[in-house]
């Protein structure tokens, strides 16, 4: 499902060269739930960005669902992200001028889907996540847990094969975080979606089938 072959990411910070990933290699099977743990600055988020095609590695190949991302142009890689990847962010990233329903439907806008169909799919997901009564609420009217569930619904709305979750519980209290992790676990089990979780939190990582540790840009 996800294969990384000797992936390196180097960027310059002022005059200094920083290696965010060093010859990282990884293979994740379809339907797996893997947690990536490591200290701050170890390259966890960079790994996710490389897998999502948001960041082009300095060296190495990233193959996701059989597609070498290095070979795709902007249009193809955007289409790939829209179709195959769902994102869950620490700070939810829900635009404040959209309702929960519109936020969930947002990826479908970029897929060129009709409004009626978008709304139907988004509403079904909000229903499934127990947020039907919050559909017309703006993000600031939602609790942290509700906002993150809306964000997860948005990640799922395009039926992606992979969800990349970057510290999804980092901005939530313990109980709410646990609920969010249970939801991700459920999604993984019932829908067979591959989940790559980046976290500091051991408890959150415990929901994953496998935990990988990364330090200074390389898997330990």
């Amino acid at each position, binding site marked *: 499902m996800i294969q990384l072959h000797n992936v390196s990411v180097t960027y310059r910070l002022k005059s200094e060269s920083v290696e965010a990933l060093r010859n990282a290699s990884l293979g994740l099977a379809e339907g797996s739930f893997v947690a990536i743990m490591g200290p701050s600055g170890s390259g966890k988020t960079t790994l996710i960005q490389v897998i999502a095609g948001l960041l082009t590695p300095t060296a190495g190949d990233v193959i996701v669902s059989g597609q070498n991302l290095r070979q795709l142009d*902007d*249009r193809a890689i*955007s289409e790939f*992200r829209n179709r195959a990847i769902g994102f869950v*962010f620490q700070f939810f990233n829900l635009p404040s*001028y*959209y309702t929960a329903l519109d936020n969930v439907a947002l*990826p479908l806008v970029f897929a060129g889907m009709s409004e009626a169909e978008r709304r139907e799919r988004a509403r079904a997901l909000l229903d499934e996540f127990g947020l039907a009564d919050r559909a017309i609420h703006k993000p600031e009217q939602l609790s942290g847990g509700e906002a993150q569930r809306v964000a997860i619904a948005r990640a799922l709305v395009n039926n992606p094969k992979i969800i990349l979750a970057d510290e999804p519980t980092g901005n939530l209290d313990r109980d709410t975080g646990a609920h969010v992790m249970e939801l991700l676990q459920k999604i993984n089990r019932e829908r067979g979606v591959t989940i790559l979780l980046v976290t500091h939190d051991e408890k959150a990582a415990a929901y994953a089938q496998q935990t990988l540790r990364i330090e200074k840009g390389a898997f330990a």
Partner: protein
Amino acid sequence: MIRRRDQIRLSLQKIGLRKKRAVFSIISVALGVIVVVTVNSLMRGVRDLIIRTGYTEEIDQDIIRVSVDHRHDESPSRKRKQFVTDELLAKFRGWKEVEAVAANINVQPLNVDALAESPRASSRGYTTGVPEALIRRYADAKQLAACGNAIPLVLGERFVKLRYNEKTKKFDLEDPARVQAWLGREVTLRVGDPMAQLERFRFDYEKKQWHRLSEEEIAQRRKSIESSESNEFDKLIHGRTLTLKARVVGFCPGTRLLLPEEPARLCAKWLKQRDALARLRPVETETEYERYGRRTPREGEYTMAIVLLKTGTNPEPVVKRLKDMGFEATTRQNAFESFLKEVDAAMKIVKRIAYAFGGVLLLLACGLLWSTTSRIVSDSRVDIGLFRALGATKSDVRRLFLTETVFLGELGTLAGIFLGWTAAYWISRLVLHIAAGEISDPEGMLMIPRTIFAVDWATCALLLAGAAGVSLLAGLWPANRAANIDPVKALKRE
């Protein structure tokens, strides 16, 4: 690929982030457009009015206006000034292309009150023939009071539907079946063939434009001219026969409306008045012009004439012949076209100034559009990063911001066009209102339209297209900046 409708919606949401700036941008675009549209609408309106009220009449190719070539006054080496004489009129009449010939005597409307103090100055332009004699008599004898405050004058016969409103000081339109009014206004007496009076056009006071008469109507007019010739009112003015287009009526000071009276009785009254005035002082043979040492027309000489050609005749050979004889000769169409050219040249200058001013304003608006879009891009960094992460392509993002800039530009242009039309409409109303107060000729007042504002669709389309182009240019740099925002950096707010 984002659907167009969604693209517009997303763009509008982005504009909502900077409402005040967006409003300023729209206003700044609108200001430039208002200047251009207002001036253009007014200029176009004036031109349309000229064409509508003048051109239809003037395109009558069959009428050649002949006048004395005034350049002869300026250069002694040229031929001596030649007046149109009865002999020449007879000669013109003999040409195979000519249907009728007449010499013109113009009579200007007079303000009788002012006339008492300064008879020549108040007559507004030259006045020859019958009125000259009457003015002199009036001015010298001041006997008008005896005539019931009415000066005998030759006036145009106009079956217009008007009534003078004392309160508003204006003439109101009335039911044509009930009101048949006589107005004092400029008239032209024609000495010569009565058929030269034949007019093929009629002015529609409702639509404020000229209409060509149908063949039946022209035939009726011919009949009417023929019958009026056998029923002339006065054959004695200046001792020569006149075919009067106009009828003789009493005339009140200040070009006021007169009540209709039975024409024959009015004529008799006038003849009586004229005789009474003539007894007071005989007409002097010397004309006022001669005091300035210039050769002026004597009896049987005229400064202007009209040559009516047979329908469908090419006027150019006749015009050339008349010019060769030392006259200024022009068809009405030529005269009108050269006048229109002068109008166009003047309008071009006004338009250029307005366009330059509007252009400067639009340039400033362009800068504001650029700045607004740039600010919105800066405010939307996280959203742009999110959109990219969720599948928006660079081109989607670029189009999103270009749509936004074009939307602002077009909205400003539409607002400017609408406000420009409104401004032009009200300015024209105001100008016409002021102009109406200055007009003493009531029929002239009737010809004034409600507005001289006209919509120039081509300019509006050009402005909209131009605004789209300029907005695209203004938005290109910020939109490219947005498209190239690194989603990784944009999303890294923690």
